[in-house]
C-alpha cells in the first residue's frame, strides 16, 4: 500500500483517516475497505524511509491529528513507480499446484476438484455482477476494477477448461 498512499499524498497533505476514505472513494465497494491500523503502520514506515514527513495539528475540540506530506524523495519514488511497467497478470497458481500435485496426495477424482473450483469461480462471478449493478454508474474506477476482476475470472475458467480437457 506504500505507493498508493504516496500517490494520494501527492495532491495535498492528509491524515490517516482521510487517506482511508480517499482509498474507499476511489476504488469503491469492489475493494475491501483498508484497515486503518495498516495505513498507520505503512505511514510510519514511509516516514522512517524519508518518503513522507508528518506534523501534529493541534485541534481544540478533538485530539490532535497527525498530518502527513510527501518529501522530495517520496515524490521521486512515486514518479519512478508510475513510470515503470508493472508485473504481468498473476495466475491463480494455488489451485493449479493443488491440481497438479493432487495425485501425489492420493486424490483420485481430479474432476471433482475442477468442478468445485469452477463452482467457486461462477459464484464469485455472480457476486461481481451484483456488485457492478449496485455500483453507481459514475464510479468509473470502481466499475473498471470490477470488470477487471470479471475478465480475470473468465480467464481462470477458460484455463480450468483447458486443464479439464488435457487431464481428464
Amino acid at each position, binding site marked *: 500500500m*506504500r505507493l498508493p498512499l504516496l500517490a494520494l499524498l501527492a495532491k495535498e497533505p492528509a491524515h490517516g483517516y482521510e487517506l482511508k476514505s480517499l482509498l474507499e472513494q476511489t476504488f469503491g465497494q469492489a475493494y*475491501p475497505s483498508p484497515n486503518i491500523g495498516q495505513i498507520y503502520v505503512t505511514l510510519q514506515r514511509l516516514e522512517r524511509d524519508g518518503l513522507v514527513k508528518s506534523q501534529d495539528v493541534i485541534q481544540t475540540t478533538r485530539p490532535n491529528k497527525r498530518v502527513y506530506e510527501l518529501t522530495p524523495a517520496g515524490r521521486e519514488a512515486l514518479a519512478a513507480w508510475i513510470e515503470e511497467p508493472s508485473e504481468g497478470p498473476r495466475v491463480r497458481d494455488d489451485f493449479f499446484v493443488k491440481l497438479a500435485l493432487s495425485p501425489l496426495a492420493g486424490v483420485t477424482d481430479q474432476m471433482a476438484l475442477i468442478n468445485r473450483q469452477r463452482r467457486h469461480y*461462477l459464484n464469485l462471478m*455472480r457476486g461481481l455482477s*451484483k456488485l457492478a449493478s449496485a455500483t453507481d454508474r459514475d464510479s468509473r474506477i470502481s466499475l473498471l476494477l470490477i470488470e*477487471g*476482476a*470479471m475478465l480475470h475470472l473468465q480467464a481462470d475458467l477458460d484455463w480450468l477448461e483447458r486443464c479439464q480437457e488435457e487431464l481428464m
Partner: protein
Amino acid sequence: MIARAVPQPAPSADEMLLKIVGLSKVYKGGGPPVHAVRGVSLSLEPGQFVAVMGPSGSGKSSLLHMLGGLEPPTTGQIWFDGARVDGLSQARWAMLRRRNIGFVFQFFNLVSNMTVADNVELPALMSGATRRQAKERRIELLAELGLSDKASASPARLSGGEQQRVALARALANRPSLLLADEPTGNLDSLNSADVLRVLCRVHGQGQTIILVTHDARAASMADRVVNLFDGMIIDDMDVVTPIRPSVAAAGVLRLGE
C-alpha cells in the same frame, strides 16, 4: 397455446416444463460415427434459467438443437410441458417452435430484406395473430429492448448487439414457454453482450424459462443453475449462489500490497 410459464415453488416431477431422459445423439456421416451427446437426463422447472457450459465440441449445440426439434435424438425421450415430443413430425415441431419455443443463435439469422418491425412481427403473423395484435406485441417488445427507434431500419444497418436484441424480440414474440439461446453473445463485444444479458435477465425476472448455451461466465453466472457438459455428458450441475462478500474476488485482482 400453452400459457406463459410462471415461477412456482418446487414443482413435482410432472410439473417440470421440460424433462429429458437418456438423450443421445450420434451423427453418422461418411466417416466414423460421432457420439455428440451421450445419455443426458435433465429436468427444468418452469421459470428456471439454466446455463449450459462446456468445451467446444462437448455437445452443447447438439443438445439444444434436439430440444428445439432441429435435430432428432438418436435415443432418449423429450417431454415438453407433460407431453412427449421427441417423435413429432417436422411440421409438428415447426408449430411447437412457433408457439412455445423461442430460439436465438449466435449469428442472429434475421431476414435481411425485411425491416426490424417485420422481422419481429413475422412469428406472430405466422401463428395466426391479427396484424394489429402482431403490431402491438412488436411495439411492446421493441420498447422493452430499447429498439423503438429502429423499427423501420433494415437489420444490416444495426450493430451486432442491436441485431441480437431484435433476434431476441422475435424469439419472444409469441411468448414462448421456453427460450433456447445458443451462444447469443458469442459474436458480440462486451458492451453489446451486456445489453443482451440485461434483456435475458429482465425476461427471466418476468418468469421466462431459459436455456442458455454460453462460454461467457458472466452470462452463466446470471442463471439459477449451470450445467456443465464434457464429451457429451453432464459432469456437473450446480445452483449458482451469490457469495456473501463478493469484494474479495475483486481484491484478488487489485492488491495494494504490504
